[in-house]
């Protein structure tokens, strides 16, 4: 019985990921990717990794997906721009998949709680491991994130110095000058 706790979110994750790869519109793909990450978080929770599940939701489905939303909205063109008229039906698919996940979470909380509660690796154990044998890895990750920060700032700074897209190319050509 407890095995369904794994197979249901796994199937949801695979279906949502398939929709990510085959979707035509970027924002729809993003919706399905969020569902896929939530399903993966449920899998992690069932496998006794609540800390990884929380990180999956907070960082992957939260922070990284918001970055994608920003960029898609900045590019702001193509079929993913909301047009006036009746609301699109794009929410139905992700909504159904998320409802399945929510139903399973409720089922786990109600009856199958033993699946979640047993043999899990606590966040304290993860933290002790991070600050123990993996301390060098944490330092390397911080250096990597610093490099990412500097790189993104560098790219964004040069992009901003050129002004808004569209206006700048013309302005540079027209305003040539010395």
């Amino acid at each position, binding site marked *: 019985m407890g095995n369904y*706790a794994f197979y249901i979110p796994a199937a949801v994750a695979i279906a949502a990921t398939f929709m990510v790869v085959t979707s035509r519109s970027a924002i729809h793909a993003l919706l399905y*990717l969020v569902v*896929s990450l939530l399903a993966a978080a449920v899998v*992690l929770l069932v496998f006794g990794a609540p800390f990884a599940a929380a990180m*999956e939701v907070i960082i992957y489905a939260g922070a990284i997906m918001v970055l994608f939303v920003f960029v898609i909205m900045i*590019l702001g063109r193509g079929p993913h721009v909301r047009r006036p008229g009746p609301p699109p039906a794009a929410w139905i698919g992700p909504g159904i998949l998320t409802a399945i996940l929510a139903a399973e979470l409720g089922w786990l909380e109600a009856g199958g709680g033993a699946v979640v509660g047993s043999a899990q690796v606590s966040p304290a154990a993860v933290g002790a491991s991070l600050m123990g044998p993996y301390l060098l890895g944490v330092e390397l990750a911080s250096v990597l*994130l610093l490099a990412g920060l500097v*790189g993104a700032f560098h790219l964004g700074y040069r*992009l901003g110095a*050129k002004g808004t897209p569209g206006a700048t190319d013309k302005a540079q050509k027209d305003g040539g000058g010395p």
Partner: protein
Amino acid sequence: MTGGGLLHVPFEHAMMFAGVLLLLGLAGVIARRDAIFILLSLEVMLNAAGLAFVLAAARFAAPDGQVMFLFVLAVAAAEVSIGLALVLWLYHYKRTIDIDKARDMRG
């Protein structure tokens, strides 16, 4: 066995789950020509790799898998910030995010 408790999922099924996600992401990277979709598929692949770490470590109830998952998360965060900045550059100069149009280096 896996994860203990009521969960008796064969280890192979957990690994196959991560593998299927990875292959779907790989198919997306290969098939799509939109830079946003390629980055999304890369996220899928990184997520699948992290999942494989955690699920493998859960077999032995070890914390190491979640530690590696955090490292994968850091790599994904750095990669996606740089990648999206590059997409903005591409759109700024080429007016498109079709990577087949970015052929200045004859790649």
